[in-house]
């Protein structure tokens, strides 16, 4: 397993370490529910350095990123980030990602588990674009996410950059805790928060982590692991590649039509996706919420559980959990489009018992 720059910090904090996408990552420190609530109510910090960062530069960089991703890169300007995805020619999802416009180059932030696949795909496409260079910077970039309603208060103590001036999906470059970094108003929790990218070789990494911990003491900041990251994103209905998306699923089925910009010009997968749009999708990602919350603790939906209606299987759960905020079970899954309308009652088969769920449009909680 590879280690992030904060591995020693995690073990010193007593984290439970698991293999995630080939990285030794903290799944929890004190407990998922505790860490989840800390982020929702105050502020928590995550090591997400396992995420990959790929820089694309050169004269035709914009044209190239436009061609390999779904969203419209023309909408970006320096200081702006965008959610996007890449597909194969057949429209199957390779990965979802963030695209940052860094001025003289673009930075694509990709999932750790897909890093090798993505980088080789991007390099292969770049070969037919002269004067585009692709640099995988993943190993040298540290990434800390500070998330929660108090995150701005905490981080403002460490920087002269006016954080309240950074809008959602925008970023500033500046010093924080004495280190040059990208301060990005993004996250995977649904909370007000920031993601901090910096060169891991610049300083003692623990010093940045510790500076944030120290600054956040009045707000009782604490570390949060991948377990809480998963329950937080699921309450918002945010998708996770490998669970809710894979190469056999198209962005149209995954509810990513809003980032699939057919009018922007040519891009990889466009023809297949247009044809699918024309024909209509057969299955669709949907949110599901348990009908009787009292049953929640005994009927937590898990990846792979069948979704049922009229005695037959109409879909499959791709992510599920007991929502710590709602104290009720929630899930995401693909279901037959005929059953996908909001408010429809279906069932999830939990170890052979059908438990009633209602089709719900995420997010499951309002922020």
């Amino acid at each position, binding site marked *: 397993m590879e280690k992030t720059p904060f591995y020693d910090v995690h073990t010193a904090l007593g984290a439970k370490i698991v293999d995630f996408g080939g990285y030794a990552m903290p799944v929890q420190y004190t407990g*998922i529910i505790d860490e989840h609530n800390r982020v929702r109510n105050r502020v928590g910090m995550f090591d997400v350095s396992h995420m990959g960062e790929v820089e694309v530069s050169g004269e035709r960089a914009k044209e190239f990123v436009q061609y390999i991703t779904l969203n419209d890169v023309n909408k970006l300007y320096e200081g702006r980030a965008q959610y996007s995805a890449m597909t194969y020619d057949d429209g199957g999802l390779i990965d979802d990602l963030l695209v940052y416009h860094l001025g003289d180059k673009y930075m694509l932030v990709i999932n750790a588990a897909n890093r090798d696949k993505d980088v080789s795909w991007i390099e292969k496409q770049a070969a037919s674009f002269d004067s585009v260079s692709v640099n995988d910077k993943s190993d040298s970039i540290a990434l800390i996410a500070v998330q929660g309603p108090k995150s701005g208060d905490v981080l403002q103590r460490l920087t002269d950059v006016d954080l309240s001036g950074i809008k959602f999906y925008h970023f500033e470059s500046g010093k924080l805790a004495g280190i040059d970094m990208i301060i990005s108003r993004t996250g995977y929790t649904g909370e007000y928060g920031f993601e901090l990218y910096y060169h891991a070789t610049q300083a003692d990494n623990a010093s940045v982590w510790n500076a944030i911990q120290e600054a956040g003491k009045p707000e009782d900041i604490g570390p949060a692991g991948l377990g809480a990251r998963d329950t937080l994103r699921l309450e918002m209905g945010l998708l996770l590649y490998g669970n809710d998306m894979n190469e056999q699923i198209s962005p149209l089925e995954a509810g990513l039509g809003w980032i699939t910009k057919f009018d922007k010009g040519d891009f990889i997968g466009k023809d297949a996706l247009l044809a699918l749009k024309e024909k209509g999708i057969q299955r669709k990602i949907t949110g599901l919420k348990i009908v009787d919350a009292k049953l929640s603790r005994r009927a937590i939906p898990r990846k792979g559980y069948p979704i049922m209606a009229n005695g037959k299987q109409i879909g499959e759960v791709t992510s599920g959990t007991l929502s710590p905020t709602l104290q009720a079970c929630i899930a995401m899954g693909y279901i037959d489009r005929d059953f996908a309308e909001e408010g429809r009652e279906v069932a999830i088969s939990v170890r052979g018992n059908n438990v009633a769920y209602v089709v719900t449009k995420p997010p499951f909680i309002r922020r």
Partner: protein
Amino acid sequence: MNFPDDLKYTKEHEWLRIENDVAVVGITDYAQSELGDIVFIEFPEKGSSYSQNDSMGTIEAVKTVADLYAPVSGEVIEVNDELADTPESVNQDPYEKGWMVKIKMSNPSEVDALLDSAAYKEHVAEA
């Protein structure tokens, strides 16, 4: 991690406190730590009988779900109803408040083949 010397253990990470022909059963400190926040235990019916290694219940944690196995053969004579309201006791106090079921053993000699604290510690170290 704590593995009391006076208990017996299984490779499936259960502990047993033997009181004459009754085994008090729970899951180990290692097991609770691996599962994370436990939110529900589906207990076997009182009076039901199981053979050793049968699944007799389910442990739901936020992150995952696990089977509760019968570590010895016998009849379930009591379950820890208090865990319905406080399943977190299994995380906080796995060997006392977090006990799960009491089994009246039908074949007490099965206990001889269970692990002692030192052997279980070794098993966990290899996991």
